[in-house]
């Protein structure tokens, strides 16, 4: 390992002397790139990326061997690569994994020198760049595709219920939801059985209530009164307000919620930018509206104006790569304004560099909503090494609370507190 580190350092110092020499030296190198699944299928991703990577090869002489890795495998593959030291040169990671993977030391830190090589820190969208590792450490990755949560709603059902605009506050959301719930139609659909989704919403609503899930020493505080209030607010949609079908407690993937929206069985759905998936589910896209997730009204003391976490995909360089220079050139290429426009347009995600937003493709109504949320009211998930333990513990706790709610049990603040206490101790014990 020490050997590789010195050779990487050697390359780095060479490069500082003359970038031209560096470019010619990397020509002819072959990089291995693991891309995450952003399109409708692995093949679709391959079709999207291949011509773009060909452009890169043409410009730099560096060849890229592309492999698209599906989400169920990606983290396992990264862990295996980390353990064995045999991995790709450049890879995509879910941005919530950044701090956890940063702790493994598997990735090349983007210190100021490395950031300068990919065009500098200031090109990137602030919130997205904040979701690339623990505070006070050089980023473990740079943002590649941006995303955020927003509230999708069915305009036709809203009109039929006599509602003329999407809810802006939590009170309005509940009131609208009640008007929209009748027969086999429900106000809102939730992926209440999905651990990761539950964890995301627990963070977003927790921030609205003013919860700090981890203190500066990295100690978890999952059962603070604010977080209990946030979870109660979320579960009450099903348990008290009864605007969510109790069956949603069984929903372990997005597909069922998308289908409910497409079939008109649910009028609202809080999700990341997903127009492609809506189309596939058979949604009439003219009926689909997008608005930011509502905020509590009045704002709770200490509450933050947050209605999404900073979602997205980051781009990392494997520390064991023997071609760090070439790898950084690929990072620079993929985060260039031009490529950001092309790729995010295709995938329906948001550019992570400010320079790309001038493109008319990112000026439509829906994208503007997501962009507004991402750039101004989104907060990164806790950037701590225990992030993945945190998601598992709190997401699992919410799943079981929803199961109780679906079974008709009353969900009290005390019941929530005891589940969150257990989750808190699990995270603390693991860390």
């Amino acid at each position, binding site marked *: 390992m020490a050997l590789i580190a010195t050779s990487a350092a050697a390359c780095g110092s060479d490069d500082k002397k003359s970038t031209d020499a560096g470019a010619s030296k990397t020509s002819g190198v072959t990089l291995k790139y693991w891309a995450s699944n952003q399109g409708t299928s692995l093949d679709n991703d391959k079709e999207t990326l291949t011509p773009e990577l060909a452009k890169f090869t043409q410009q730099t002489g560096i060849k890229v061997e592309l492999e698209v890795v599906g989400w169920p495998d990606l983290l396992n593959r990264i862990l295996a690569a*980390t353990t064995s*030291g045999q991995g790709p040169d450049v890879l995509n990671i879910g941005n919530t994994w950044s701090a956890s993977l940063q702790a493994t030391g*598997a990735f090349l830190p983007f210190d100021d020198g490395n950031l300068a090589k990919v065009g500098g820190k200031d090109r990137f969208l602030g919130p997205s760049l904040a979701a690339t590792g623990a505070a006070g450490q050089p980023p473990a990755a740079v943002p590649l595709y941006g995303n955020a949560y927003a509230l999708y709603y069915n305009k036709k059902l809203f009109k039929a219920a006599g509602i003329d605009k999407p809810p802006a506050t939590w009170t309005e959301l509940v009131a609208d939801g009640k008007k929209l719930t009748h027969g086999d139609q429900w106000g809102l659909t939730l992926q209440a059985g999905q651990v990761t989704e539950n964890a995301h919403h627990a963070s977003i609503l927790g921030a609205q209530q003013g919860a700090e899930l981890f203190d500066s020493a990295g100690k978890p505080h999952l059962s603070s009164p604010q977080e209990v209030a946030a979870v109660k607010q979320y579960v009450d949609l099903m348990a008290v307000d009864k605007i969510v079908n109790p*069956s949603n407690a*069984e929903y372990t993937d997005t597909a069922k919620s998308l289908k409910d929206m497409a079939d008109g069985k649910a009028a609202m759905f809080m999700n990341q930018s997903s127009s492609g998936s809506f189309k596939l589910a058979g949604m009439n896209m003219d009926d689909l509206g997008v608005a930011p997730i509502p905020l509590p009204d009045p704002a709770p003391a200490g509450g933050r104006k947050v209605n999404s976490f900073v979602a997205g995909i980051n781009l990392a360089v494997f520390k064991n790569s023997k071609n760090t220079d070439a790898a950084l050139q690929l990072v620079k290429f993929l985060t260039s304004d031009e490529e950001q426009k092309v790729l995010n347009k295709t995938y329906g995600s948001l550019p992570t560099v400010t320079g790309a937003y001038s493109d008319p493709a990112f000026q439509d109504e829906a994208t503007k909503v997501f962009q507004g949320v991402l750039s101004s009211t989104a907060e990164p998930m806790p950037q701590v090494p225990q992030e993945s333990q945190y998601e598992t513990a709190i997401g699992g706790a919410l*799943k079981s609370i929803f199961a109780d709610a679906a079974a008709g049990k009353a969900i009290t603040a005390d019941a929530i507190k005891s589940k969150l206490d257990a989750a808190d*101790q*699990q995270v603390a014990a*693991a860390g």
Partner: protein
Amino acid sequence: MASVISMKRDAEPDAVRPGRDAKPKRRRPQLLPYLLLAPAFLLELLIHLGPMLIGVGMSFLKLTQFFIRNWSAAPGAGFDNYKLALEFDAPVGAALLHSFWITLGYTLLSVGLSWLIGTTAAVLMQSTFRGKGTLRAFFLVPYALPMYAAVITWSFMLQRDNGLVNHLLGTDLHLVGTGQDAPFWLIGGNSFYSLVLVSVWRSWPFAFLILMAGLQNIPMDLYEAASIDGASWMRQLRSVTLPLLQPVNQVLVLVLFLWTFNDFNTPYVLFGRSAPTQADLISIHIYQSSFITWNFGSGAAMSVLLLLFLLLVTAGYLLVNARRRKHV
């Protein structure tokens, strides 16, 4: 599957023979057989024992995400991982213990029912009737189906709103509520019974197959002699069939127990990566508390504990059976 039985039957005399033969012959030890066996033996050690030992080693390390890149840097944990798993007052230990009891209940129910249904079907299929072959093939379908496809189908059928089970029990038979009163099968308390149901459905054909093969080996003379003595069908079952199936049952129950106790696939496909508390089987639980949370040392310790428990059960079971056989 029949080979399991024939192996079992053959194994006994084989195991006894060398001991008896060794004394009178006293030949020079031959090297060649051992040399020929060596590669297989070494590979066996490498493939089976190697990972197991590494797992045991891991259980004594504080192997979290901070150290997976360089295992040698992981600090020793001593017995901390075991302490964490066995401290039943703290949440981690309590959850593991809870999961252990759930798994034990699940295993006993599933193995018991699979055995009962398998035996009943095998005994009833003894007599000759038309369509016997077809029925036998039909019985084996759950065993032959690819596991994933079968269990995912069950998970569709057990869904509350659109599932076949609620449609049949509620809309058609009026045994359970419908619409918003319909029961859940994949979350809450019922999820345990759903899991047992799917598990029994999957494993009884195996019991059936093994027992049917075992029945073929019972000499017909015994039944004829019993009939002449005036033994009823029930009496024949009790005094001839079941005692002679004993050696087969012994292996069958053990194998079913180990498979079911360790079952990962059924709950994973049925519930996804986070099972409901009421159906939190131990293999999923360990996966959750180690792989998903990147705490490999703790997961390894839990796995070692599981291994020790199963080893203990197996050894105890074989010992009791061996003693019983001696007494017979």
